[in-house]
């Protein structure tokens, strides 16, 4: 295995959870709900993923458990913000704080246990293709899911009637309601989908990236995923680009250091964030384009009038 291949493999592993969590949040936000609890749902997914894998002995059951935990946890958010119309920003932040604390509590028994790693699934023939074969067709299941998810979300949002409904709810919930769309139900589903994605991303951390459970192991990745959605101006394909850019810059800076270049490591560590700011500036330069893609009802509570 050449160095370039090894580097790319590391980048893929680092980027996959970002991609999944950001796609989930993108769908949630497209329905007009801003869920800042990604970090909290992710860490719940990580602890549940690890726990389910330990109990069942299978990393796949673990991944499923992570998804489930993220979904159930997001249900709490959905209930508070959609049924009780609580402030979405405050509730989302609370969800993150609660998730970080609760996962620490639930995971206490699993601290220090070597975990079960999800083994790669090698696809015959395709994995024999030089260079890209090993990178793209000898990966763990969650990587394949992340790509499938990307295509599915893109198709769903822009090519199906249901996707159109979801976007209309996000753009103008009053009109959607007037048209007879059940705004709350659509948003519930979008939030739960986002939660399941965040949970799966978390499970990737504790089953693929570092097969162990430690508190705070998400270490801010949920926030990066949130930023990526804005970075991508709510377009799925741009999420792919953003997630891999973040992953690549993060890994590249480690390689630059290990090669002994005299670039300050603090500067290198801040590169992904600088990149985000630059992209945000470029995107917001074109106001019309931004407005087209931004869900107009984002973050606003909806109370159906009877």
């Amino acid at each position: 295995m050449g160095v370039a291949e090894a580097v790319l493999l590391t980048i893929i592993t680092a980027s996959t959870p970002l991609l999944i969590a950001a796609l989930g949040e993108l769908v949630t936000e497209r329905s007009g709900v801003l869920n800042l609890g990604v970090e909290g749902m992710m860490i719940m997914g990580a602890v549940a993923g690890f726990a389910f894998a330990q109990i069942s002995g299978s990393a796949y059951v673990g991944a499923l458990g992570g998804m489930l935990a993220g979904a159930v946890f997001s249900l709490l958010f959905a209930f508070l913000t959609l049924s009780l119309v609580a402030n979405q920003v405050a509730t989302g932040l609370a969800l993150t704080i609660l998730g970080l604390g609760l996962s620490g509590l639930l995971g206490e028994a699993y601290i220090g246990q070597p975990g079960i790693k999800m083994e790669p699934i090698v696809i015959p023939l395709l994995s024999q293709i030089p260079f890209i074969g090993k990178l793209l067709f000898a990966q763990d299941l969650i990587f394949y899911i992340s790509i499938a998810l990307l295509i599915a979300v893109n198709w769903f949002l822009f090519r199906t009637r249901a996707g159109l409904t979801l976007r209309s709810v996000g753009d103008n919930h009053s009109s959607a309601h007037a048209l007879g769309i059940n705004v709350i139900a659509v948003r519930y589903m979008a939030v739960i989908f986002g939660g399941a994605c965040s949970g799966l991303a978390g499970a990737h951390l504790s089953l693929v990236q570092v097969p162990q459970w430690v508190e705070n192991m998400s270490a801010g990745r949920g926030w990066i995923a949130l930023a990526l959605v804005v970075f991508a101006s709510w377009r799925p394909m741009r999420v792919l680009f953003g997630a891999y850019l973040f992953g690549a810059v993060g890994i590249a800076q480690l390689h630059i250091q290990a090669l002994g270049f005299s670039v300050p490591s603090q500067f290198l560590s801040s590169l992904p964030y600088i990149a985000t700011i630059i992209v945000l500036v470029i995107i917001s330069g074109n106001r019309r384009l931004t407005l087209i893609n931004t869900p107009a009802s984002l973050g606003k509570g909806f109370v159906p009038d009877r």
Partner: protein
Amino acid sequence: MKKTLALVAGMAAGLVAAAGAPALADSHAKTKACFVYVGPIGDFGWSYQHHQGLLAVEAEFGDKVETAYLESVPEGADAERAVERFARSGCNIVFTTSFGYMDATNKVAAKFPDVMFEHATGYKRESDNVSTYSSKFFEGRYIQGQIAAKLSKTGVAGYIASFPIPEVVRGINSFILGAQSINPDFKLKVVWVNTWFDPGKESDAAKTLIDQGVDIVTQHTDSTAPMQVAAERGIMAFGQASDMYRFGEKTQLTAIIDDWAPYYIERVNAVMDGTWESQDVWHGMDHGSVAMAPYTNMPDDVKALAEETEAKIKSGEFTPFTGPITKQDGSQWLADGETADIGTLLGMNFYVQGVDDTLPN
């Protein structure tokens, strides 16, 4: 929402009152020792070991002592609030266990002259209720360096470093000195991750180093992730702060173990009998505050060498920073047989020769 908030606020106020009142009431009967940790107690590294110290204090004094701790307290503005909260809540002695708490500790200490403060790995004692304490972890690094040089096939080791502070720089220098004592051409690649605890980033750093040809990894960060990556890739690694053997039974060569228990017991005891005084303590293997995990996964001759060095350091016969030592820029630091003075070691901000990296400012 408002109601919920009010309820939460009320509960919090109640809790504070409940926590504060008994502490004040029987502050004469019980000594309260409080600990601030930078990571979670479950990191199985740095904070875990400090927490073992807390548990040892509890075991030693039983009913006579009350303990409290805060984990995952970020270095910076939050630290000051955490320390101050402890000072207000009736703690008699507060242990702040990370370098980055230095200014916060001193600031709070000036406001609470009756509370004793113990700051780990720092050097500022601005009021006479502040002590500093540390351990000479670098003694263990030297042994690791020797082992690495004996076992490495590529002649390059990788070092995952947290922040460019003297404590970390000392470790890197000591490691390379140990390695060079076996193989003068030994190289060390350093990657700074700018965090104490981020398993994902630490494992990425480990992968990076391995991809660039190192076949032994050591870390000055707190999670077990690098050990696991090393195990997965089939190379060797050293544990950090705590015995990480179970994360790499075929991988861990040894680990530097921080044993804070004796010091914590001694200092809490000093508060109890009123003999506590500000001091600066820097113990090493001689006091047992730095210990090595069993030497595993290596041939007997390497093990014997490591044990011999360990014995020499323990008895005081040898210290890693003994001349001749040349700085990275080529200038001479220590002449033949000269040993480093404590001041230079405590403020160490330069590499010695052989480190393949530029020290960040």
